[in-house]
């Protein structure tokens, strides 16, 4: 990333200044640009929106979507909800953990993290996953291996 955090934050703070109700759009914009919401930004965000730090922190931690640390180079999300469970979703989780070495919702391993997600709207084509944000349906272990290899190749770095 070329820009410094401050360079990203300043225009966003200006855009949403004084408007507490725009905290979510601000956080989304920040995470879209930097990949996560750095806790170091909390005081500045709180000041700009006339909120307490506790309020901003509370919102960031309430919503599963917001990350407080940079994401791994490759992020795999596996759906854990019922329709995916009915088609081997949990076996897929075990397979993904085994082949990435990363524990689901745990630390990254070799630049890969594996996360739970609860429904991707592909319940008629389960199990569903995303790899670096790209959606895939009807993912069995073999298809996962192929998709994962593709994504790692595209990502270019380990």
């Amino acid at each position: 990333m070329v820009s410094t955090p401050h360079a990203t934050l300043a225009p966003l703070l200006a855009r949403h200044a004084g408007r507490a109700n725009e905290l979510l759009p601000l956080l989304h914009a920040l995470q879209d640009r930097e990949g996560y919401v750095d806790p170091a930004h909390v005081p500045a965000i709180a000041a700009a929106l006339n909120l307490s730090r506790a309020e901003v922190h509370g919102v960031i931690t309430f919503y599963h979507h917001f990350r407080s640390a940079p994401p791994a180079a490759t992020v795999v999300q596996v759906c854990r909800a019922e329709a995916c469970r009915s088609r081997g979703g949990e076996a897929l989780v075990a397979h993904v953990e085994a082949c990435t070495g990363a524990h689901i919702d745990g630390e990254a391993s070799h630049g890969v993290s594996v996360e739970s997600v609860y429904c991707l709207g592909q319940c008629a084509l389960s199990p569903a996953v995303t790899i670096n944000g790209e959606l895939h349906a009807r993912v069995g272990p073999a298809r996962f291996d192929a998709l994962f290899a593709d994504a790692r190749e595209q990502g270019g770095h380990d």
Partner: protein
Amino acid sequence: MTETSEIIRSGACRIYIPRDSAALALGADRLARAVASEAARRGIAVDIVRNGSRGLFWLEPLVEVQTPSGRIGYSNVQASQVSAMFDSGWPACATQDGERPMPATDPDGSWQAGMPACVGRVDAIPYLAKQQRLTFARIGVTDPLDPVDYEAHGGLAGLRACLALDAEAACQTVLDSGLRGRGGAAFPAGIKWRTVSRAEARQKYVVCNADEGDSGTFADRLIMESDPFVLIEGVVIAALSVGATEGIVYVRSEYPHAIAALEAAIDVARREGWLGPDVLGSGRCCELRVAKAAGAYICGEETALLESLEGKRGVVRAKPPIPALSGLFGQPTLINNVITLASVPFIFAHGAQTYREFGMGRSQGTLPVQLAGNIRRGGLVELAFGVTLRTLLDEFGGGTASGRPAKAIQVGGPLGAYLPPAQWDLPMDYEAYAAVGAVVGHGGVVVHDDTADMAGLARYAMAFCALESCGKCTPCRIGSTRGVEVIERIQRGDTSSRQVRLLHDLCETMVSGSLCAMGGMTPFPVRSALEHFPADFGLPAGAGRCEAA
């Protein structure tokens, strides 16, 4: 057939390749690129339309070719097959003579093995032909972002009809249609509209609930990605009817494709004058924007959603006041689900009575059922209320995907009960389901085969509640964690009646002591699993019932 003759004249062959996320998740973008480049390489003129999905997901990517005798479909097409398809004469669609036959499934060997199956005329596929698509009439037929296509297929007729009515008459139309909220609670939409309409305020809002968190549901997503204009039209009708000038669609962050499609459609609608300061030249104003959620299931609950729109944690508000009187920023706010609002244009265009003629009892109109989970033919099935799970499973779904016997069907999302085979002949009707402790909810139908572990699924229901609880009330926040523990003890073999009683007591406390349905309904899947599938908990027949414990 004007469309067809136009293509014949231009010489280009029109090919439809969906852009709905279900098709994308199976490689539709790569496929579209392959078709375009292969056609260019061979000098064949093609006109590729990125339509929505027909909702026949097991056929995706479903490619359609416009021919003089209708749109012919090819199922599960992969980019790697495209070159061979062209080799065998595909797409032999409307050429100058208009008569070239389609390669069928392979009568004369020209359509090679390993190539996608030709499914014939798409609108004649029984799964589709047997449906009653009112709300989903245009799905997959049109280009989701083409305003001309939208109007040519009946779009805007509802909004025009609404503009001729005063607010009171418009709300009465919705009331007369019998439409009830499709988001879960099934509250009569017309009553809610009238309440907001009669409320006096400087500013009112229409909020569309597109949080669609229930597993097994994708109807909202399908509307937003495949016919976003119908939702926009529905929101504008609602806004005009209740006296609001601002609409907000709150879409879950797990749906980036839906967000993109909706935002693009809003831009088009504004450019076309369907939105903005002067809706269709009426002098009336309606603005609309998308708000992106952030991955919290509870924000589908309407008051938590409002908190989230105000920039706060999604903690449920106590009612009263009801949002219709004091909602977003304390102003009167109409909150409806995507399907509720998308059903409205049909009602205004064709009349409340026409809509009301579908359905049964107090469940009027159609329900977009979402067939999901372990099912051979999963997809969207819009039918009048009253259909049975058995019909859906066998006639539409074609049985389980695994080929094993079906065991349990969860209807209505993670807070809905598991229905055993003995209940699969019940008509889908709000009251009939309520009578057996089940819910229709948002119409999600998730099938599990006989390998399903119902104790494990009951444990999951509690764990999901623990994960997603907003934390405001103790029975939900603490009870769900205790629930996980008790079920785990039973799973480990402690099947004493004490544990079963404890689980029932816990469920009872959650049902009676929770502020919202998150804590109040999580016991539905748990208790139904326990009652109907005691063996999965290591219990003898009958031991899972509340009275038995």
